[in-house]
């Protein structure tokens, strides 16, 4: 591995959080998951072949797991364990139209949302297919649907987001 972990972290940390946010999580959740995923990739640094994909997949999985636990009412216990490692994203206040955009994205079905998040990060169809373990045709169709829906919601007059 030619790149150092630190260089990778500096380059990719913010984008990783943005990715998790695009997958439908809050900035807080995203940062916590991103940090944990970075720890995981750091420990495996010498043998992780594609760290960008690995760290994103891990962060998303962690965010999903965490939300499941919270929904199961375990949030208090988790809170205690992670007390010292609480992320510091409270000051995150995006501009209103970004907030609005995120609200729209969160309304996409999960699979489409995930595929679209990879797409936004510049991953190619074939890469996404490999990561998400689905045929390329499915990737293309998810993307087309996602774009269709977003285009509809973004159309003037439906800006407040009607269900299609």
């Amino acid at each position, binding site marked *: 591995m*030619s790149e150092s972990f630190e260089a990778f972290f500096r380059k990719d940390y913010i984008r990783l*959080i943005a990715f998790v946010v695009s997958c439908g999580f809050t900035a807080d959740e995203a*940062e916590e998951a991103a940090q944990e995923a970075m720890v995981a990739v750091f420990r495996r640094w010498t043998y992780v072949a594609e760290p960008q994909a690995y760290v994103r997949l891990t962060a998303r999985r962690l965010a999903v797991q965490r939300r499941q636990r919270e929904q199961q009412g375990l949030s208090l216990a988790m809170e205690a364990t992670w007390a010292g*490692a609480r992320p510091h994203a409270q000051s995150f206040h995006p*501009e209103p*139209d970004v907030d609005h955009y995120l609200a729209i994205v969160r309304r996409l079905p999960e699979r489409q949302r995930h595929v679209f998040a990879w797409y936004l990060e510049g991953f190619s169809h074939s890469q996404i297919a490999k990561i998400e373990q689905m045929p390329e045709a499915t990737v293309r169709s998810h993307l087309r649907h996602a774009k269709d829906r*977003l285009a509809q919601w973004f159309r003037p007059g439906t800006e407040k987001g009607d269900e299609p």
Partner: protein
Amino acid sequence: MTDHNALPKGKHGPEQMHERLVAALAASIDTERALERVLVQGRPQTLDIRILGPLRAFRGDQELDLGSPPQRAMLAMLLLYEGRVATFEELSAAIWDEEAPSRARARATLHTYVTRLRALLEPDRSNFELLTSGGQGYVLRLPADVLDLTRFDRGIAEAEAARKAGRLREAAESLRASLTLFEGEPLTGIVGPYAERQRAHLAERRLSAIETLMDLELDLGNHAGIVAELIALTADHPLHEGLCAQLMLALYRCGRHSDALNTFTQMRKALIDNLGIEPRPELSTLYQRILAADPTLNSVPARQPQGPKLPGPAQLPADINDFTGRWEVAARLRTLLSAQPVAEGMPLVAISGLAGVGKTALAVHVAHQATEAFPDGQLYADLRAYTDEATRPEFALGGFLRALGMPPDLIPDGLTERSALYRSILAERRILVLLDNAHDADQVSPLLPGSPGCATIVTSRIKLADLPGAHLVELGVMEPDEALSLLSAVAGRERVAAEHSAATDVVTACRFLPLAVRLLAARLAARPSWTVATLAARLAHAQRRPDLLRVGNLSFESPFALAYSQLTPEQARVFRLLSLPNGPDISADAAAALLDLSVSKAEELLESLLDASLLEISGPGRYRLRDTLRPLTRRELDKSERPEDRAAALRRLLGFYLASAQAAHRLAYENSMIADDLVASGVGGTFPSADEAVTWLIVESDLLFATIDQAVASARMGEQLLPVGDLLVAMEPLLDSGAHTREFDRGARAVLAAALTLGDRGSELRSRYVLGRVLFDADKPREAEEQLRRAHELSVEYGEKAITGQVLTALAVVVGRQRRHADALALFDAAMNWYRENGVLTGEALSLSYSARDHLGMGEIEGAIAAAEKGVAMFTEAGSDGGTARARYHLGVVLSRTGRLAGSVYHHLEALAFFRATNQHVWEQRVCLRLAETFITAKRYPEAVHHAEQALIISRDISYPYGEAMSLTVLGNALRELGSTSRSLDCLQQAFDIFSRLSAPEADPLRAILDRTHSVKAGSSDRPISRPE
């Protein structure tokens, strides 16, 4: 269709919104603080396991509880297996020793331990990656640096690299740091026979690292700093001669001469009391040098601080410290040698003159004075023109190439090839070559470096007028005043000055020949009661003696006769018998066998002859008869020793060499059985390690072959020949090292001819076996097969059992190489059966490893892999690390060829780690190259580049041009795939240049590719260059 599903453009499209999200996040999140937290959280989890002391494990700062003693023993074994599978049986045996529970119980218990260990090693995981089941057992694969033993190995390798690059301080620091990893005795508290063996093995490695460290400290001039440490070490290891020598030297350099001498005395006493043996000759020699306050002991070798080069060869014989006279000619020679390199070629000086006129002494003296001008080293070869066996130029070249750091198995066979390689190595170096006692220009020419930076001195009795470009110097007798000052220098200035006229008579009677003057001067020095006049009178008397030796037209016969007549009967016998063996020189212990004396007695007598100027020192603990005196000594031998005594002396010498070679064979092939089957007929040397055993064979090779020739020539009965055949076979490790194939060829043919004459089937079998192997190495498989078949028939017909397994294995390899794979497999089966019946596990394992190739040839992929894997397993079972590593190499090749790239990489890496740790550079280079090729196949080009570069560095380190060119080719191919077209072309061009220089056929495909690329322009889509087999 309207564009209704187009996404909004401009600042409201999702891509833009996403980028704005990223910008907003970047503004509110402190990446550096997050990085810090991640680094802290990620790091403390690292494992740290220690076995170089009590077995302990840490995660971060926290020590882990490793559980019950059997559980700890299991962990220890898994750790020491370093990523290999430990089978259930092995684990049970290691943990419970004798009183193992039933098989089923044992497995269940082992499983319990594994579960607990997994929880300790990988607490956060549900799927365990480190400690896994591996077929018939368990395997623990730790990341690099977790185990202190791995860290130790790495430190040792780094130190070795630094030492080679001349960074001694760094090497010493790295060794010290590595040694601190030992916390008391390794594996403390772990029970069982396996741990016991490993404990001894680790302790041995620690000691060897300490010895290297002490050597470095001595070289760095830090003798004062290590005396205390060495005293403590020698107290712990009272019989360790290496440490003792280091302590003696350190004390001596601190000016504590008597302490240094006492150290030797105590050591000697301890050796005699405990083991009943004398110290090694090196130690005794050191003792004597300290006793004589030898100033060269003080010199710390000067080294260039940053020079990345290996130390060059320093083969010159010692300069005579009372060299006298020859002022004018010496000055002229110095000027000739120091001439700036000029266009017309290198300085070449040919000194000719009568026997005893002092050509060698002058050449050696001048060469020593010129060493500074030749920083890359000095080569010396005695071409032995005036003995029974003049040195053949290809043999001299073999010696030079080895001295230049060329691994023996990479030295080519023919004279032309050797000469080409020699010149290509010398092309960029400044080396002085001294060719002593040359016969004619034909013998000398192949030994001349071609490059202007080098220089050569040749000595010969006849003038080498046909040597192109040579400055011819004819050396006459000395001037009278030169001869007188030589007499003064050796016999004492005052005595000579007091009797000037008698002294003049003496040197005149010597006809001003330096050797004659020296012989008489040494007599005079040994007889304080004599006056110079006494000497002159005795000399006159000697000249009148009718029985005076008349050998040719030699002018020093009377001085010789006088010197000889002054020897005690004991000395005279030693002196005579030394002319019996044909080898160039002899070691003290071999001489002891020849003379039938104890080593210490023999040494004492040899030293006394050295004082009398009748012998020369040719190396540490090695003595040489002066060539000039050999005919005279032979005459005395024929006159005074009965033929049966001479024959007995030669038999004793042969017996010594045979017994030593057997010991070497046993070590080199890990308890080979051959050695036991051979008839031992003497007491031989013993060796502490396989490496030293092989080194001994290399050092003594000339003598061994000379002894074989001589013994063959004098054998009259089969019983006399058989030990010679045995010796040939016992020298097998030397044959395997690739050195001396021509000598083996000649020796084996000589033994074979004699065996046929005498009807000795045992020797016939042995010589045919060796000859078959030689022929195979020379790429003559058909002839090799014929010899081996004959050998096999002999063993079947006459029930000669000694080397049946070896013959069968060799035959199978030879047949397989001719693509008769089915026949080869049948022969391998026969070999394995034989080994199995005779309980030779390693032999069976080797046959298995080799047979994989023929399984592949038959298209049996699974069979090939199974055979190679089983070979690895059996070597492992036999406890042979070297065998395991070589078998892994074979397995890696098979896996790579059958497309199992991951497995291939794994086994190659394992083998690589072993060859690195044991400094087997040729193997290391080979494995790196295979790895690079495998990675290219796997399209993982960065790794391919990495390993090809490693292979390249090693090839350059060991001066292995062929390997360098191979590495450059593979590197070029990998770089091209990565798109570095210009670097790739650069590598291929360099490879092409080297191959062309070596006249290797590999140059042709490269030329084609380079030509095409140059004409099409860089970056075109060539096919990758395939590696020629």
